[in-house]
């Protein structure tokens, strides 16, 4: 590796890792929006992945190659517990239930000693490497892109546009909605694990409402026409505050403005590409 690249990576290591993690979070949002659902639970799923994986590493001393895949188990269980009852009802219920989940979990983290209470967990071994983060990001993008160009992707797009017509075409809409929620919990959980194992510290306030809105704005800014679009949104929204320092205080305001602007002026996002929905 040339010296300048080494220097560059060293200086910006944290930012580079954060970009990749946020890309995974954007994908976890994309999966839900792509079937026409709205979840504000991505940050909560991420927190469950972060806390459960940190405990597996620190208390159970499990190796990272076990911890990483296992980090999606707890988020998936919570997604099942929330998705099964709410997806029978109209779409709003999932959004509300997932907001609630984030707030409930924050209170739990604050009050449970095992997870460090208000102090959070410190000294998590830094085991997440950039190659793992970007490897998983590339695999996730490729898998979602391949799925998008198949009968599964057509079913997702059909139910996003018109769930009634999709069900008449034979799409089991509820099953797809639950599947998408579980996939999004897996992606967010793994992102949580990776972020916990690269920053060495996690706290109860990192997975509340504000990050949930930020993750939503990744996908709204980039668009959900293709999986890459949402990742582009995540990259822009992660880099902007770095470029405009001092501006980070206004982050939530900025994210709110982006959501409003995206809905009003860019309903298809910045990357308003339409995916070809067939493989042949």
């Amino acid at each position, binding site marked *: 590796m040339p010296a300048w690249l080494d220097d560059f990576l060293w200086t910006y290591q944290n930012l580079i890792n954060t970009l990749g993690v946020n890309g995974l979070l954007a994908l976890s949002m994309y999966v839900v929006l792509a079937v026409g659902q709205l979840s504000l639970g991505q940050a909560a799923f991420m927190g469950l992945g972060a806390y459960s994986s940190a405990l597996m590493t620190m208390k159970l001393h499990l190796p990272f190659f076990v911890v990483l895949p296992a980090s999606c188990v707890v988020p998936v269980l919570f997604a099942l517990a929330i998705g099964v009852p709410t997806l029978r009802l109209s779409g709003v219920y999932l959004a509300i239930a997932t907001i609630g989940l984030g707030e409930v979990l924050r209170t739990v983290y604050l009050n449970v000693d095992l997870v460090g209470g208000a102090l959070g967990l410190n000294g998590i071994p830094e085991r997440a490497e950039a190659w793992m983060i970007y490897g998983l990001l590339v695999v996730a993008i490729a898998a979602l892109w391949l799925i998008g160009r198949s*009968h599964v992707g057509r079913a997702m797009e059909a139910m996003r546009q018109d769930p009634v017509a999709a069900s*008449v075409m034979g799409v089991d809409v509820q099953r797809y909605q639950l599947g998408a929620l579980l996939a999004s919990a897996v992606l967010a959980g793994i992102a949580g694990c990776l972020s916990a194992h690269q920053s060495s510290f996690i706290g109860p306030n990192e997975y509340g409402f504000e990050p949930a809105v930020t993750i939503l704005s990744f996908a709204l800014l980039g668009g959900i026409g293709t999986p890459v679009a949402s990742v582009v949104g995540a990259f822009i929204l992660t880099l902007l505050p770095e470029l405009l320092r001092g501006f980070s205080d206004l982050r939530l305001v900025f994210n709110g403005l982006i959501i409003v602007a995206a809905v009003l002026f860019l309903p298809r996002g910045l990357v308003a590409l339409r995916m070809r929905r067939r493989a*042949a």
Partner: protein
Amino acid sequence: MSLLQTEGLTRRYAGLVAVDAVTLAVPQGGVHAVIGPNGAGKTTFFNMLSGLVPPSEGTMRFAGQDITRGKAHRRAALGMARTFQNIRVFTEMTVLENVLTGLHAGMACGLAGVVLRLSGFRRAERAAVVASRAALDAVGLADHADALSGSLSYGDQRRLEIARAMVAKPRLLLLDEPAAGMNPAETESLAGLVRRIADGGTTVLLVEHDMGFVMGLSDSVSVLNFGRLIYSGTPAQARSEPAVVEAYLGARLAEKLRARHG
């Protein structure tokens, strides 16, 4: 034995009975019409048949199976397809992609096969595209395969819906007012299309207000009025059936009164 059989099929909404104890048998083969004045319950009847609205009472059998409690998405695999009175094409998909969704029930390949692009998946996708192009050809939309569906004219969107419903070669096709909004030339070519569909072995059950279309095409006619089935028989006899004439005259009279008195 009949392909479709309803027994006392009823749907109530707060304060009204949209479909009232309808017992109807649709035989295998041919074109069958359900007619009736506005608000008679025709669409509600179709919605129950296709599993979108659960019946309040009664039962339905289709192709030898009880489908009373079955979900909408199961109907496709059983061989039932439909179009909608207010067109429901996926406007942000291409014409070809729309038709491909009509084959969803038959696409068996799992996620692993999709992601790994296994040969079974690729074969199924290729076959689906071939079948979809043929279905578009049959409705005269082959040249528009790659257009966005939302950009099609109204009449073409109706044809697209028919292609999407027909691509899986269903046993029963439900058409809810297929000629609505079409000009006489389009209506005539639609009649030819429906005839060809029936000749191809798919039973057609259609709702339509255009009486010329219904009378010239249908092997049997059933008349709904205020949710009740008041006639079921040949189209010729329907014209001379007092209850039918009365229902239509009543509806027309009511319309005239509304027009005159606001």
